[in-house]
């Protein structure tokens, strides 16, 4: 058991050698290396900005989602048992999470409270309350709000249905478009970066073909031959993630600062810097390494016949 571990584990000296050879490989095709690193940089910068945007939009959406509810106003003529029936019917809609009763008095109180000082004018209405009793409905998934509202409208004893239709729909549309556009761009760039890396490494493999031939001849293991190229790819990925991470961290700090100082009234709560930017930075490095490994594996599969 022990012996096997010794045999399969990479010796420190060997590890050092692969690292050194990997660095040497980078220098061998300087311009191609530069192009690959630039491609990774652009890709990760875009990924970073998209992710920062999307995650913030998502958080913003979540916050909004929890506020989205449907007010179903009950017909004035409805009797108690008809109200109970309506409540259970609403509860039976599968997308519905909760249903709460709100008397017209409570409704008016809420309204006055929400309007603040302006609400005082409604105080006089307390005797002649123009509102109806209502059920406040929350859906499990905010995206179902429109459909559920439509369904409730069809039910008996419902006078009217209200919800923040436009706001909700527009937000989800924007979120979806941003997500798709971002995703398409990122995927396209990922492939470009991978392709450039694999080409760079292909050039290195060709430049070192004599060495590789002799390594095979004298019995170097396949992984011994592969490692330097894998290291080359990983290094390109890591180097490509440095600038995006710098920009992201600096930019995010700047943005938070800007909002706090210049537009304190703006109703936007960005995700806090810690741990968000650092998690994102870690993710970018990991992504860089993945692109690098992917690129080198592609070129090894095609050009390194070991």
């Amino acid at each position, binding site marked *: 058991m022990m012996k096997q571990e010794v045999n399969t584990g990479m*010796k420190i*000296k*060997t590890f050092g*050698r692969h690292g050194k050879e990997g660095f040497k490989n980078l220098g061998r095709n300087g311009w191609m290396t530069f192009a690959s690193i630039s491609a990774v940089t652009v890709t990760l910068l875009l990924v970073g900005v998209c992710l920062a945007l999307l995650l913030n939009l998502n958080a913003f959406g979540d916050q909004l989602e929890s506020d989205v509810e449907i007010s179903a106003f009950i017909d004035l003529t409805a009797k108690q048992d008809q109200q109970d029936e309506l409540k259970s019917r609403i509860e039976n809609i599968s997308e519905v999470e909760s249903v709460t009763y709100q008397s017209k008095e409570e409704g008016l109180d809420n309204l006055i409270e929400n309007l603040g000082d302006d609400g005082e004018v409604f105080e006089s209405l307390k005797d002649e309350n123009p509102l109806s009793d209502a059920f406040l409905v929350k859906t499990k998934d905010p995206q179902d709000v429109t459909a559920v509202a439509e369904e409730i409208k069809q039910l008996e004893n419902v006078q009217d249905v209200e919800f923040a239709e436009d706001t909700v729909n527009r937000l989800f549309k924007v979120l979806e478009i941003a997500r798709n556009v971002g995703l398409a761009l990122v995927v396209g760039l990922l492939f470009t970066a991978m392709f450039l890396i694999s080409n760079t490494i292909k050039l290195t493999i060709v430049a070192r073909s*004599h*060495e590789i*031939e*002799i*390594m*095979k*001849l*004298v*019995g*170097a*293991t*396949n992984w*011994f*031959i592969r490692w330097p190229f894998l290291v080359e790819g990983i290094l390109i990925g890591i180097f490509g993630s440095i600038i995006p991470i710098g920009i992201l961290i600096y930019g995010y700090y700047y943005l938070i600062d800007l909002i706090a100082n210049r537009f304190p009234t703006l109703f936007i709560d960005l995700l806090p810097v810690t741990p968000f930017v650092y998690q994102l930075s870690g993710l970018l490095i990991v992504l860089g390494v993945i692109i690098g490994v992917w690129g080198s594996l592609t070129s090894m599969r095609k050009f390194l016949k070991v």
Partner: protein
Amino acid sequence: MIEMKDVWKTYSNGIKAINGIDIKINKGEFVYIVGPSGAGKSTFMRMMYREEKATSGTIIINGKELGKLKNKHVPKLRREIGVVFQDFKLLPRLTVYENVAFALEVIEESKANTRKRVMETLSLVNLKNKARFLPDELSGGEQQRVSIARAIVNNPHILLTDEPTGNLDPETAWGIMDLLDQINNRGTTVIMATHNKDIVNTFRKRVIAIDGGLVTRDEARGEYGYEN
């Protein structure tokens, strides 16, 4: 020991290189492989270090059946076989010492051991005083001795040499033959594919003639048997 039983090799382009070879080479033998160009000599050699796989038949090297050898075990086989080519295949940017040491480094030999083995081998091939030279600064014969040093630095059981004197003038070629003989005397099996009639006829050893992918002659202390 090397044993081939009814070995055939057809390349994917349809060329039939080897058409049923049976042969046995014992440990410590010195064998010439002779035959016209395109007779299958190179394929025969390449199959022994598993650069090519036989299409059918059995090849056994040091008890390993190559047809059943997994790819990941090929490196181990190659550590038991040294290979030398007509064109030396030295790495031009590495010194003589580094070229020979390279063979040990890539199989993860320790530094101390590498140093010891390389110096021993360089003195065997009589190039100790040129250890720091680059290949370009050496004569053809010296370059070939570096490549032989690289092939034997790991103490392989078998040394395969494909036209090792092909690029050398006659006098230098004899120097190489002396060296191969010395290596053979230390117990290494030496197999040499060659077109050099003088060498085969003077330095008499077992001769295996291959023609049309078949063994046409196999004689202990044989002659070259072809006109150059």
